[in-house]
């Protein structure tokens, strides 16, 4: 990946490198966390994360966000392979412009698919990159759901079906792309990526 991120604390290119994240608003202090907050973090280790301690200001919203997220991406029962779900997340992040989110999910997509070069092409060229038919179909569907007005139509479903996906797999792509329209807006607006700050946010 380009070296230019070294020159800037705020990364100005898409990258698979590990980035940090700095909040714009004050998170709750660790000492302020009540049992309600800690339960909402789901994983107790997230008490170390400024991102999750900021979201803990609305603990119920945080809890249900996290449980929704985990099932969409981590549920291994049938449906789309993890790599395709992560690709949808990376494509939405590339299109919306969330450099931080794209870095995390590009890493996951590259790792699960073992397709680093294609993922780097998506990051470098954008959502029009040529990635082979199956991934092109996933990216096109994710972009069509993200645009306002949305352009997602029967042709996107048919194209995904033609790659061998069943309805649960297509629903996984729809939910993964939709979820990153949620995640991108929180990550982008509540703080910013930082290249000179160590990775400090659990993956999601």
């Amino acid at each position, binding site marked *: 990946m380009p070296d*230019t991120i070294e020159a800037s604390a705020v990364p100005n290119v898409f990258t698979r490198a590990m980035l940090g994240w700095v909040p714009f608003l004050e998170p709750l202090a660790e000492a302020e966390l009540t049992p309600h907050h800690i339960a909402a973090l789901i994983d107790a280790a997230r008490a170390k994360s400024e991102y999750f301690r900021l979201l803990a200001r609305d603990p119920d*919203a945080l809890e249900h966000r996290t449980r929704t997220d985990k099932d969409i991406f981590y*549920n291994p029962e049938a*449906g789309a392979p993890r790599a395709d779900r992560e690709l949808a997340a990376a494509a939405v992040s590339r299109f919306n412009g969330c450099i931080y989110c794209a870095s995390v999910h590009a890493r996951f997509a590259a790792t699960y698919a073992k397709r680093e070069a294609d993922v780097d092409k998506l990051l470098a060229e954008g959502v029009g990159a040529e990635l082979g038919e199956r991934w092109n179909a996933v990216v096109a569907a994710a972009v069509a759901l993200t645009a306002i007005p949305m352009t*997602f139509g*029967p042709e996107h479903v048919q194209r995904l079906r033609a790659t061998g996906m069943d309805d649960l797999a297509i629903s996984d792509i729809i939910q993964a792309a939709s979820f990153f329209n949620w995640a991108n807006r929180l990550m982008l607006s509540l703080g910013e990526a930082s290249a000179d700050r160590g990775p400090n946010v659990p993956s999601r």
Partner: protein
Amino acid sequence: MDVIDTLVGVTPGSPLDAVRDGRKIARTHAQKSYEVLLTPAEPGDFSIAERFAVAAYVAGLHRVEPTAGYYRTGLLEHGGALAETVAKAITETAAEGPKGSFPAGPLSTEDTPAPAFALSPAVAEALGPKLLAAFAHTHYLVFHPRDAAPERFAPLQDAGWTLDAIVSLSQLVSFLAFQIRVIAGLRVLAATP
């Protein structure tokens, strides 16, 4: 049937019911997210009427039925006095997305101008300062979130938004960006043999 099922038209025992059950935890907690963001037991500094006003605005900006209609009805129930004003705000600030600017550098060639948030004085006045600040923030989150900056919170704080309520507002708008797309996507899936 939850809100997503209702708006997609999922009926018990249908193929799409089985698809949604394949991600049962997501199904449950997407609905819980809706409940805690729109009708929380303790709304704090962000009233239920204000939440439905923001939701009707977000759904209206996405220009998709039946979701926009669902939140128009919700606003009539929970904050009816604002319904006409919110409808006008949607018309006056309609735009396309995603837009905005990247941190200066190689990606600057991809920058696109942020859509204006320009309300008529009458609509701005009818919203009042607190909702006006919320709608300006919402418009940016919906259409050009990559234009993020810490300065964007100052108008909210000046209008009386607490940090907790700003997080709830951010979650509400962002959650709706998810819910609206899941509904639209699953409707297409259900209608495509």
